[in-house]
Every structure is written in C-alpha cells, then in structure tokens.
C-alpha cells in the first residue's frame, strides 16, 4: 500500500436541526451526529468504520460521499477541498466518489431496467455514445459476475445478492477512486454475504479502489479491513490497524464490543462482563467523555473533560480517545 492520502478529514462536524417535543411544546434542538472527526484514508486501503446504530457512522459516510454538507471542518478528496464548492464545481469530484447502500431493494429504481440503471451515470456525465454505453454496462455486469442478458431485466427479477451486485456495478460505472460502502452485506444471507465480500476484494484489485466500509459486524470487518476506526456517539474513539485493534484494544468500549461478538465454539453459557445500559441519546450527550456513564474505569476527569484522540505511548499509529488509556494499554 502506498501512502497517498485520498480522503483527508479535519475536525469534520455535522449538526442536524430538529424539533423535539419538550415540556413547552416543540423545541428547536441541535443534534450533533458527527463531532470533530479527523481521519485520513490512504489510497488503496480498506478503512472500516464500526459502531452501534445511531453512532453517526452513516452520517460520516454520507459526508464523504458528498451527500451531506459538513457543518464545519475541512474535507479534501483527492487533494481538492470540497467545502463550500458549488453544485457545478462538485460535479467532477462526484465521479471520484461513489456509494453502495445497505438495502439492495430500496436502492435500485424498480421501473428501470438494469441497462438504464447502469448507463444513467454515463449519460449524466455525457460519456460515450449509446452503443458504447451499453457495451460498458455489459462489461461491468460481467465484472460483478452477471450475464449480459440481465441488462434487459428489472430489479425485481433478481435475488438480494444479485441486486447488491448490480448496485456495485453501478458504483463502478464512472471508474471512481473511492467507494463508501454502507453496510453492504448486512441484509444478505451468510452464503451470499461471502460471495459479495469476495467480489468487493476482487474489484479492489481490478479497479484500484479505496473503500470506506461501514459495518456493525466485527466478524465481517475482521475479514476485510486493513484499518479500523471505532465510533461512539459521533466521535472516533479508537483507530488502529486490524491486527492491533483485535489483539490490543485499548478503549474500554472497543474491548466491550469485542467481548460481545459471539464466536463459533460450542459454549452454551452467559457471556458475562458485558456492557450494561444503552448508548446515550445524541440529543442529550453526557458531559465529558461520551462513554463515561457505561465505563467501568470512569473517574472524575472522565465526567469533566473530553479526552483527545491521541497515539498511545507505544504505537504512534494506534489512536485512542480515553483519559485512562496509559493504564489500559
């Protein structure tokens, strides 16, 4: 892997304005979905973003896919600052970034044939003539393992796994450099899931892709990722290489997450020592470290101030946001 940065996030934040039922009718509130995320993604790597539902991983992914405008911070894609760009200026950058969605049923237009779905991006960017477009669409179908005769079919004629293959082909039409895959296999059965994961690995070689792989499934992430970022309540709390994260997790939340993953060994018994309670609502985040109400190591300082995401003493590439990290390494 070379070390060219393809996506560079500095202090990225996203705030949504909501109306929430309060004691005196509807109140305007701000929900900070993503807070102060600083992270770089290198060309060719698979960075996995893991966390529980509501932690902001999809919001972060959608900012990188240029669906959402960040509220503050900077975002550079392929060396170009995208904050504050106009629609027209963003258009050429959109070719570089594509997205694969979780639900292969909802993300394909049921009234379009596969050919229409795959040629639309080329039409938008006025690439090729119509014959060449059809040829390119057939090539892409072949690359994801579907026959060219499927071009004339509609999405409902396919199974879930095949639809996800079509979504992947669509994401590749414009020859992007960077793909945001938001839980691409969580709606699939395990035998189909492995087909899609293998396909994504093959395509990464073939098209020199960089992935942001958003998932809640640590076993899938363990199989696929080069580097892993763990999110909790809108913030990245730990970043490390796959090997370090699974073998030397530091943050108490990462440790609890790893302990909760069931392994396939016959052991009917309680898991024990698991994390109690629910993640706090992002509308009412706790003071200090967001994890402190559930953390077994929480002390006064954890309730008072927010820990920075910093390298551990032993490894400059292993970043942890925890006041007690030196005791926990």
């Amino acid at each position, binding site marked *: 892997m070379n070390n060219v940065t393809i996506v560079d996030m500095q202090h990225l934040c996203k705030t949504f304005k909501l109306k929430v039922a309060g004691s005196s009718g509807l109140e305007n509130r701000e929900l900070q979905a993503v807070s102060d995320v600083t992270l770089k993604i290198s060309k060719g790597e698979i960075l996995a973003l893991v966390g529980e539902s509501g932690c902001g991983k999809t919001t972060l992914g959608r900012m990188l896919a240029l669906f959402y405008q960040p509220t503050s911070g900077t975002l550079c894609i392929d060396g170009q600052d995208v904050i504050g760009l106009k629609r027209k200026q963003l258009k050429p950058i959109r070719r570089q970034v594509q997205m694969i969605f979780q639900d292969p049923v909802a993300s394909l237009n049921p009234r379009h044939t596969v050919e229409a779905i795959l040629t639309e991006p080329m039409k938008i960017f006025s690439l090729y003539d119509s014959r060449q477009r059809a040829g390119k669409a057939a090539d892409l179908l072949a690359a994801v393992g579907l026959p060219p005769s499927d071009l004339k079919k509609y999405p409902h004629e396919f199974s879930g*796994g095949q639809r996800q293959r079509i979504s992947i082909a669509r994401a590749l039409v414009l020859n992007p450099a960077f793909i945001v895959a938001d839980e691409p296999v969580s709606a699939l059965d395990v*035998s189909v899931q*492995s087909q899609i994961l293998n396909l994504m690995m093959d395509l990464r070689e073939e098209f020199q892709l960089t992935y942001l792989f958003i998932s809640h499934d*640590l076993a899938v992430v*363990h199989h696929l990722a080069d580097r892993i970022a763990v999110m909790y309540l809108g913030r990245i709390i730990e970043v490390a290489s796959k090997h370090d994260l699974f073998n030397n997790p530091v943050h108490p939340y990462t440790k609890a997450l790893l302990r*909760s993953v069931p392994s*396939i060994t016959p052991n*009917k018994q*309680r898991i024990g020592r698991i994390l109690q309670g629910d993640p706090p609502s992002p509308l009412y985040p706790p003071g200090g470290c967001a994890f402190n109400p559930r953390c077994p190591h929480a002390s006064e300082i954890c309730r008072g101030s927010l820990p920075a995401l910093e390298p551990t003493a032993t490894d400059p590439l292993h970043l942890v946001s925890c006041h007690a990290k030196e005791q926990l390494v």
Partner: protein
Amino acid sequence: MSSVDETILSVSNLSIGFETDEGLIPVIEEVSFDLHTGRTLALVGESGCGKSVTAFALLKLLPPFGRIISGSIKFRGQELVDSTESEIQAIRGDRISMIFQEPMSALNPVFTIGSQVAESLLLHRHLDKKMAWQQAVEMLVAVGIPDAAQRAKNYPHQLSGGMRQRVMIAMALSCEPDILIADEPTTALDVTIQAQILDLMHDLQERFGTAILFISHDFGVVSRMADYIAVMYAGKIIERGDAGEILTGARHPYTCALLATTPRIDASVTRLPAISGRVPAPGQRPAGCYFQPRCPNASDHCGEQRPPPVDLSVTHQLICHEVVSE
C-alpha cells in the same frame, strides 16, 4: 415444574404447503424434532429455508394460504394439528409463547408496556387488574428494566430497541410458559445489546426451566444459546445433533459450507469459501437431494434419489448420499 430434559413437545414428519395459483406448493417437508424442558434447540438456516414457518406452525399462526399437509405436533400428549382455534388460544401465550425479531412492530404503540405485559395475565390467569399490573411490573424487573414501576407506564416509542426486546420477553414469559419460541430475537439489535439479551435468556431459562426453540441464521449466536442444533435447507432438516457435534463435527456438506463461510474474529482467511448458486425456491426444488446443485461432493445418484438418513451417533443425524456412518 417439570424436570429438566423431559420431552415437552414433539414434532414428527410435519409437512406444510402454501396454496398458490399453481396449486399447493410444499414449503416444509417432513420436519421432526423434540423440545425438552430447560433446554434450547436452535433451528439454523438461511432466509427462505422454512425455519420461521415451522415456528409459526407450532402456534398455528400460519398465513391464510398455509396448510399443514401431514404430520403431528404433540404438546404434553395433546395433538395440536387438529385442535380447534379456542383450544389453541388457551395454549398460545400461556403454555407456549413467542418473541419476534422486530420488537417495534410486535408491540402495540397505543398501549403502555405495563398493560401489554399484564394482558396475558388477565386473559390466562384471570387476575384482577391491580394484581395483573403488579405482576407485570415484577416481570419487567425480572427482565432488567430499570425503574420498572415508572417504566411500566411508558409507551413502546419511549424505549430503546434493547428495552423493547426486554418487554417482549417479559410479555412472553409472564405466564411462565413451558415453551418459548424465539424467532431471531437479537437480529435487529446492536452487538452489545444482543449480548445483554442473550444473557437474559440464559438467566430466565435457568429460573423458569423453559424449553426454548431458538431460530437464527447466525452460528455465533447459536453457539452461545443452543444445547441442540438442527440445520434446515429448502424446507428440510438436513443435519441435527448436540451443539458440539454440529459446531465442531458437522458432516453434511451444506452445514460445513455454512460454517466455513461465516466470517469470524478468531480465525483469518484470505478468501471466504463461498457457496455458489442460491437456495431453490419452494416449487422449484430439484429432484434427488435439494442441495445437490450447489454441493461440491455431489455425484450422479445425488440428483436422482432422495438422500437416506444417516446416523452418526445417538444424537447426530443427517441426510446425505455421500456420508456413511462409521
């Protein structure tokens, strides 16, 4: 309370079909299994293999087009297949109850959770309202709802997903049923919450001696819960055994492939072995062995004859042409 390991429900040769425009299509074919008090049987398989239909059939909750073609379901000696609706109603929610995958759509949004837990107590135990409410609150305490007396007055939307699943479990267990059917109870939950719910089910099984039929597609979760495992493929149980026999000694090519294809955090592979093709739809099941078109070990006669049952041990059985017992 009955002693542990007593057979409490016995399903034998159960076949279920769906009425369609093309006639009656078999969905479940000759499924047999037993449930024992204080023990958990896990039904494992991919979507469409018929594991949920089997579970719904036990409570006669099949869709309007579903028919039990043949077979028997015996609960404590009583035949459920030809029992009347009112006989089933007396059992459903009292002796046999069920929890579902999606706790939000399984709870009624316009009633408080306390009244929903109390409902089956009013219906089956004929308690007065005050007593039922009190017991409902005790049940909510038992499933670990903090501040249960106040929380009982909440509506489902005021609870988190994990809390809602706890309420579902409280509802299902309020009459201390003999059998709990859990249909993918943790699939919609996050992994730390899933761990909480699985631990809770362990505790409650120990306390009430409930027999659990645990339906899941996830071998990881199943290994935490199951005493016995039955693997389903295209409407049939293709392999069954003690949890250890299946998880570490599976012999059916489908079970082996399913286990190998599951990503895990305690082992690394560069490439996941994939099972090619897909599960045949009901009505399009091939001749011979249903897994044969996808099977790496298939030989000619696999496509011609139904595979015979093979006994590997007293508990470990499978159907396959290519596996022979030692």
